[in-house]
C-alpha cells in the first residue's frame, strides 16, 4: 500500500494535469513534515502520549470493571432472553466448528418448521466469542464458554471507549478524545446493554459502529486507501454483528451528500466513500443473513444513489480542471440538462420498482423508524416488544444523564471551525437523536454520539477555563517579575513558555485537520481557519468566572459519575432470570425461572414440545433443552399468531391447536402472587392482537369490558374462559384463603373456582411465577349420550360433595 502511494505521489509530480485527483495522497508526507517542523515540543509530545496511553488503559479498566456489578451482586450468568440464544449458538459453534454452525438447521425451535440458524443469525458476536474461547484454549486457559460469553460485552465496551477516543481525536484532538472515552466508558445507556452477562449483538456492535465511523473520518482526513480498506473491513464486521449496520450505510452517504452540497467535495471524500460502497457491499453480501438484501432492499439504496452522485460530481470536477471556465459553463448546462433527464428516468424506474412491492421495499422495522406510528398500526408483533416503544423523557435523563445538557454545547464547539469530521459528528448526532426518539432500543446508537459531543464540549470548556487561568497566572507572574525583579528568571519563564507551548500544542492539535484542509483545498478554507485563530486569542474569561466554571464542570462530571455507577450497580445489573426484592425482612430472591427450566429438563422427554409465549422460547431451548413452538426470533408471524390464538381460546379449542402442534407442555408465567408485573396476563392483549391479526375469530373487544382490560368480576366471559386466564389463575384462590387477590393487577380475580378439563397442572414453581401444564391425552373411551345425564345424577351427589370438601373452603 505504502509503495503504491509513493508511486502515486511520484506520478503526481510528473503528471500535473491530474492534480485534482492525486494531490490528497500527499497528505501523509505533509503530515510528517508538520510534525518534524516542531522539534522543540517532541519531548512534550512523548510525555503527553505516554500519559494519554495510561489514561486510555485506565479508561479500559474502568469500562470493564463498571460492568462487573452483575457478576458481583448476582452471579456469572447469561442475562435476559436473546443472550441465551447467542450463548446456545456459541456453544454449538465451539462444539461443532464454523462450517456446521454456518449450515446449522435447528430442529428444536419453531417446531415443526425449524429454523436455519446459520442463515438467519448475525454471526459477528458468536464468532467473536468463539474465537476468544479458542484462542484462550490454545493458550491453555481453560475458560468455559459461558464465562467467555459473560465477559465479552465488558471487554468490548473497553474497546468501544478506545474507539470513541480515536474518533473524537480525529475530530477535535486528544483532549476531547480522552474525555469522550471516559464518558462512553460509563454511559448508562451503553451499560444497560453491555453488563457482564448481557451477551447480545449490541455488545460488540457499538464498538464496530464507532470504529467504522473512526476509520471513515480517518480516511476522510488522510485520504488514504489503506484506511478506506480498513473501513470496509470494519463495516463488514459491523454487518456481521448487528442489523443496525443500515444506520452506517445510510449515515455515511448522507454525510457525503452533505459535503457535496456544501461544496466540500474533495478527492479524500471520494476515497473515503467509493471503496466503502463497493467493498462494503460485496463483503456485506457475504454474510448469509444479509446476502442479496445488500443490493435488493431500500435500506441500501441511498448508498448507491450517492455513489452515482459522487461520480457525477467527480467527473464534473475533473472536467472543470480540464476546460476553461467558459467552456465548463457550456458543458455544465449540457450535462445537467441531460443528467436531469436520465435522473428522472432512473428515479421513475426506481419508484415503479419499489412501489410494486407491498411494503415498498422496506422491512417493517425500518418503516417503523421512518413512521413511528407504523408498527402500532400494522405490525403488532413489532409494537409488542417493549424496547421498540418510543422512549419517555425521563429515560433520556436516566440513560445519558448530564450529557443531554452538554450535547448542545458540543454542537456549538463542532461549528468552530466546521470541518468534514465535525460535520459528520453533528450529522451522526442529529440522526441518532431522531432514531432514539422512535425506538427506545436505539438510544444505544445515540449514546456514543452524545458522549462524543459532550466530550468535545467538556474538553473545550476545560480548555477555555484553564487557558484563562494560565493566562492570569502568567500575567500575575509577569507583574510579580516587574514588582520584585530579583526572582530567579529560570523559575518564572518556565510557566510562561509553558503556556505558550501548550497553546501552540493545542493549536497544533486543533488546527491539524483544518490546516490539512487548507493545504489540500483551495484558499477559501484558509480564510475562516485564520479567522478562527484570530478569534480564539481574545477568548479569555475573567479568572473568578473560569475557576467557578471549572468547579461547576467538575461537579457536573461528578454527578455523572455517581449516576452512572448507581445505574450500573442498581438499575441495569439484574439478570432478569433471577429477581430480587428488598423488603423489611431482608432480601428475597426469586429464582423461579431456572427452577421451572430445570424441572422441564429433568422431568420431560427430550423430544417433548413446550408451548409458551415467544418471550420464553430462547430460554427454554437454552436452559431446558426442550423443543419450543415459537421463540424470540419472531420470523414467522403466523406461527406466533397460532400460539396467541391458542392462549386466547377456550380450553377445548386451545387443546386442539396445541395437540395439532404436538405440544406436550404449556408454560405460563404468572406474577400475580408475588407482584411480578411482566407476566403473561399483562402481555395477554398482545397475544390477542397478534392472534387476531391472523385468525379473525379472535377479536380484541371480546376481551375488553368497555375498552378496559380487566380480570376481576367485571371481566368479559371470553376473557375468563380463555386458556391464559385459566392457566394463570388455576388454584390461585387456594393461596390466600378464598380471596384470590392479584398483586399485579391489584384486584380480586373474576372467576375463582374452576376445573381444567383438557390440561393438568404438573408443576408450579416456588413463587408461582412459572406454571407448567400438561395436555391431557385424548379420552380413551367416548361416553354415551343419553345416559350421561342419568349417570351424572346418580354420581353427582358424591362428586359435588368432594368439590365442597376441597381445601378451597
Amino acid at each position, binding site marked *: 500500500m505504502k509503495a503504491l502511494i509513493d508511486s502515486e505521489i511520484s506520478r503526481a509530480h510528473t503528471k500535473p494535469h491530474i492534480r485534482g485527483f492525486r494531490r490528497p495522497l500527499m497528505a501523509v508526507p505533509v503530515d510528517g513534515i508538520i510534525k518534524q517542523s516542531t522539534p522543540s515540543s517532541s519531548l512534550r509530545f512523548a510525555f503527553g502520549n505516554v500519559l494519554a496511553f495510561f489514561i486510555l488503559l485506565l479508561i479500559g479498566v474502568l469500562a470493564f470493571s463498571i460492568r462487573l456489578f452483575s457478576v458481583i451482586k448476582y452471579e456469572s450468568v447469561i442475562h435476559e432472553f436473546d443472550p441465551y440464544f447467542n450463548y446456545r449458538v456459541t456453544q454449538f459453534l465451539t462444539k461443532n466448528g464454523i462450517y456446521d454452525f454456518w449450515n446449522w438447521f435447528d430442529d428444536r425451535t419453531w417446531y415443526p418448521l425449524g429454523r436455519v440458524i446459520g442463515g438467519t443469525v448475525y454471526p459477528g458476536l458468536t464468532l467473536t466469542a468463539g474465537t476468544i474461547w479458542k484462542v484462550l484454549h490454545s493458550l491453555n486457559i481453560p475458560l468455559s464458554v459461558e464465562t467467555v460469553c459473560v465477559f465479552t460485552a465488558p471487554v468490548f465496551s473497553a474497546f468501544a471507549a478506545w474507539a470513541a477516543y480515536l474518533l473524537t481525536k480525529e475530530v477535535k484532538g486528544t483532549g476531547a478524545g480522552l474525555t469522550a472515552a471516559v464518558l462512553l466508558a460509563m454511559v448508562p445507556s451503553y451499560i444497560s446493554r453491555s453488563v457482564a452477562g448481557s451477551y447480545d449483538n449490541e455488545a460488540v456492535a457499538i464498538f464496530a459502529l464507532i470504529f467504522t465511523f473512526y476509520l471513515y473520518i480517518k480516511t476522510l482526513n488522510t485520504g488514504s486507501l489503506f484506511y478506506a480498506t480498513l473501513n470496509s473491513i470494519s463495516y463488514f464486521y459491523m454487518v456481521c454483528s448487528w442489523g443496525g449496520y443500515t444506520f452506517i450505510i445510510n449515515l455515511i452517504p448522507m454525510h457525503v451528500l452533505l459535503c457535496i452540497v456544501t461544496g466540500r467535495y474533495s478527492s479524500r471524500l471520494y476515497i473515503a466513500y467509493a471503496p466503502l460502497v463497493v467493498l462494503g457491499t460485496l463483503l456485506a453480501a457475504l454474510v448469509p443473513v444479509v446476502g442479496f438484501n445488500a443490493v435488493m432492499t431500500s435500506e441500501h439504496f441511498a448508498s448507491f444513489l450517492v455513489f452515482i452522485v459522487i461520480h457525477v460530481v467527480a467527473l464534473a470536477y475533473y472536467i472543470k480542471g480540464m476546460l476553461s471556465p467558459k467552456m465548463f459553463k457550456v458543458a455544465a448546462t449540457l450535462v445537467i440538462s441531460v443528467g436531469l433527464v436520465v435522473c428522472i428516468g432512473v428515479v421513475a424506474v426506481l419508484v415503479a420498482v419499489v412501489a410494486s412491492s407491498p411494503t415498498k421495499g422496506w422491512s417493517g422495522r425500518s418503516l417503523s423508524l421512518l413512521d413511528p406510528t407504523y408498527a402500532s398500526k400494522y405490525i403488532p408483533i413489532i409494537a409488542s416488544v417493549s424496547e421498540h416503544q418510543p422512549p419517555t423523557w425521563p429515560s433520556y435523563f436516566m440513560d445519558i444523564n448530564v450529557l443531554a445538557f452538554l450535547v448542545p454545547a458540543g454542537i456549538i464547539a463542532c461549528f468552530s471551525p466546521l470541518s468534514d469530521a465535525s460535520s459528520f459528528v453533528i450529522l451522526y448526532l442529529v440522526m441518532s437523536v431522531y432514531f432514539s426518539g422512535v425506538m427506545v432500543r436505539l438510544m444505544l446508537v445515540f449514546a456514543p454520539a452524545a458522549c462524543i459531543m459532550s466530550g468535545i464540549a467538556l474538553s473545550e470548556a476545560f480548555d477555555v477555563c484553564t487557558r484563562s487561568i494560565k493566562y492570569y497566572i502568567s500575567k500575575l507572574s509577569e507583574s510579580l517579575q516587574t514588582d520584585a525583579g530579583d526572582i530567579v528568571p529560570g523559575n518564572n519563564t518556565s510557566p510562561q513558555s509553558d503556556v505558550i507551548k501548550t497553546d501552540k500544542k493545542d493549536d497544533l492539535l486543533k488546527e491539524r485537520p483544518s490546516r490539512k484542509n487548507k493545504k489540500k483545498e483551495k484558499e477559501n478554507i484558509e480564510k475562516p481557519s485564520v479567522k478562527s485563530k484570530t478569534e480564539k486569542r481574545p477568548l479569555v474569561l475573567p479568572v473568578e468566572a473560569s475557576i467557578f466554571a471549572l468547579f461547576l464542570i467538575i461537579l457536573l462530571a461528578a454527578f455523572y459519575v455517581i449516576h452512572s455507577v448507581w445505574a450500573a450497580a442498581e438499575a441495569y445489573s439484574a439478570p432478569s432470570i433471577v429477581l430480587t426484592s428488598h423488603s423489611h425482612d431482608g432480601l428475597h430472591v426469586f429464582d423461579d425461572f431456572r427452577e421451572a427450566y430445570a424441572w422441564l429438563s429433568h422431568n420431560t422427554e427430550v423430544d417433548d414440545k413446550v408451548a409458551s409465549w415467544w418471550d420464553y422460547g430462547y430460554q427454554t431451548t437454552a436452559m431446558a433443552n426442550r423443543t419450543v413452538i415459537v421463540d424470540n426470533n419472531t420470523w414467522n408471524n403466523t406461527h406466533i399468531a397460532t400460539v396467541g390464538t391458542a392462549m386466547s381460546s377456550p380450553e377445548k379449542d386451545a387443546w386442539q391447536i396445541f395437540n395439532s402442534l404436538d405440544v406436550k407442555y404449556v408454560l405460563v408465567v404468572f406474577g400475580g402472587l408475588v407482584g411480578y408485573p411482566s407476566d403473561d396476563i399483562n402481555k395477554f392483549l398482545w397475544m390477542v392482537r397478534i392472534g387476531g391479526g391472523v385468525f379473525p375469530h379472535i377479536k380484541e373487544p371480546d376481551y375488553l369490558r368497555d375498552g378496559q382490560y380487566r380480570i376481576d368480576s367485571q371481566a368479559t366471559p371470553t376473557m375468563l374462559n380463555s386458556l391464559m386466564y385459566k392457566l394463570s389463575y388455576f388454584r390461585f384462590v387456594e393461596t390466600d384463603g378464598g380471596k384470590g387477590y392479584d398483586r399485579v393487577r391489584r384486584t380480586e380475580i373474576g372467576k375463582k373456582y374452576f376445573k381444567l378439563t383438557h390440561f393438568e397442572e404438573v408443576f408450579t414453581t416456588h413463587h408461582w411465577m412459572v406454571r407448567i401444564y400438561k395436555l391431557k391425552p385424548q379420552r380413551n373411551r*367416548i361416553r354415551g349420550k343419553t345416559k350421561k345425564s342419568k349417570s351424572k345424577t346418580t354420581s353427582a351427589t358424591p362428586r359435588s360433595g368432594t368439590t365442597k370438601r376441597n381445601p378451597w373452603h
Partner: protein
Amino acid sequence: MTAEEWEDFRKGHPKAASLKTVPLPFPELCATLFDGNAATGNPSQCLKLQHSAVIRIQTSRTLEEPKEDNMAKFSIATVFIASISLLLTLTHSFSLENPTDRRILVLVDDLALKSSHSIFFSSLQARGFELDFKLSDDPKIALQRYGQHLYDGLILFSPSTERFGGSLDVAAILDFVDSGKDLIVAADANASDLIRNIAAECGIDFDEDPSAVVIDHGSYAVSETEGDHTLIAADDFIQSDVLLGSTKIEAPVLFKGIGHSLNPANSLVLKVLSGSPSAYSANPKSKLSSPPSLSGSSISLVSVVQARNNARIVFSGSLDLFSNKFFKSTVQKAGSSHKFAKSGNQQFATEISKWVFHERGHLKAVNVRHHRVGETDEPAIYRINDDLEYLVEIYEWSGSNWEPYVANDVQVQFYMMSPYVLKTMSNNKKGLYLASFKVPDVYGVFQFKVEYQRLGYTSLSLAKQIPVRPFRHNEYERFIPTAFPYYGASFSTMAGFLIFSFVYLYSK
C-alpha cells in the same frame, strides 16, 4: 418358539441371549417350583420361568459354598427369590409378545350360571384361558393388587347386580379398561343401573325404560307357543371377517333381552348384531301408548367397543345369548320355512370372544426404519430432495403366533402440520411394507406417520420424527449454465479494467 420370536424376545432381554441353549440344571426342581405357571402352556412365559430359575440356581450355588449354619438363611433367600421371580412372570404374562388374554375373571349373579352357560365357558377354557368364577358380591373381588392387574379380562355375567363386592365399582372397571384390559358385559331385561352406567361410560346407551325389552313381530324365532315375540332370531350381522370369523354364520342368533343405541358420532363403537327393521324396544306386558324410543335397525343387540388404547369390550343386551339352551336350540325365523338344527349362537359367541380376547385382529408393527435409497443406516436428518425408503413390518396375531399381515391399503404420510407425501405402501406378502419417495423441497421437522385403522383391527398409530434440512452451503451447484452470461460479464469487466489501468498508467 420360532427363531423370529426368540429374536424379538432377546431384544427386550439382553441377558437372556446366552440362556437359549443352556439346559436347565435341575429340571425337576423347576417343575415343582413353577408347576402352576407352566401349566398355562405359554411358551414365552415358560422361557421366563427358565430364566428366573437359572438365576435362582446360580444364586443358590454361590450360597451353597458357606458352612452348614447358613442353611437357614439360604432357604429363606431361595424362597424370597423364587417369589420375586414368580411375581415377575405374573406381571409379564400380558405383553406385546402375546396379546391374547390368559386369566379371566367371571362375575356371576348365581353360580348356577356356571353350568347353564358351560358350553361357552368350556370353549374358552379349551382355548387356554384360565377362568376364575366369583359371585359378583363376593367381598374378596379385586382386579388389582399392589398396582398390578390380576386379570387380563373380565366377563360380567351379572346383569342384576346393583353393587359389586370388594373394591370393585364402576370406576375400577373403567380403570381396568383404560389400562388396556378386555371386558364382556351381558345385560338382560331389568339390567341394573350399575351395568347401565358401565355401558354409558363406554358409549352404549341401553334403553332407559327399565322394563323395556326388544320385541320383533317380523323376525321372531318361531316356537311351539305363540309368545310375545321377545325371542328374536337376529341375522343382521356386521360384515367383518375380523370380528366374526371367516366362516359365515348361517343360522340366526337367538336373542332375548334389551336393546341399546349408539351415538353415530362415536367412532369407537360398532354394532355387531343389530335389530331388524321391524324391531322395537318396549315393555311387552303393557300396551304401547307412545312410539318406542328405540326402533328399527338403529337398535343394537350386541355391540363392541375398541377403546383408543385397543382395549376391547363386548356389550350384549342378552345374557341368554351365551347360554347352553340357546346354543343348542333349533331356530326358525318367522316367515322363513328353513329350520336350522342349531342356532348361530355358539358360533357367534365363540367368534366374538375370540375377537374380544385378542385372538384375532390384533396387529403389531415392528422394525420401523427408514434410510436413504442405496443405504442401510438410518440417518439422523434428511436433506430436502433426498430419496428415501420407509419400511415397516406388520404382523397379525393368529391366536398362537404372529403371522404376516397382508393388505394393500397401508399408507405412510410424510407429515409436517399436513401430509406432504401420502403414499400407499407396497408389501412383499411376508409382512414387510415399503414405500420409497422423495423428500419434499421443504425443510422442517417432519414425521413418518402410519395411521392404520380398519374395522375390527387394533389401530396402528406410528409416528417417527425426523428433521429435514436445507442444502449445505457447499451442496449447491458451483456453476449454473444459465448464469454464464454473468460470469462472462464479470470476468470481462475485470480483464478490461486491468488492461485499462495498464494502458492508462504506462502510456505516455
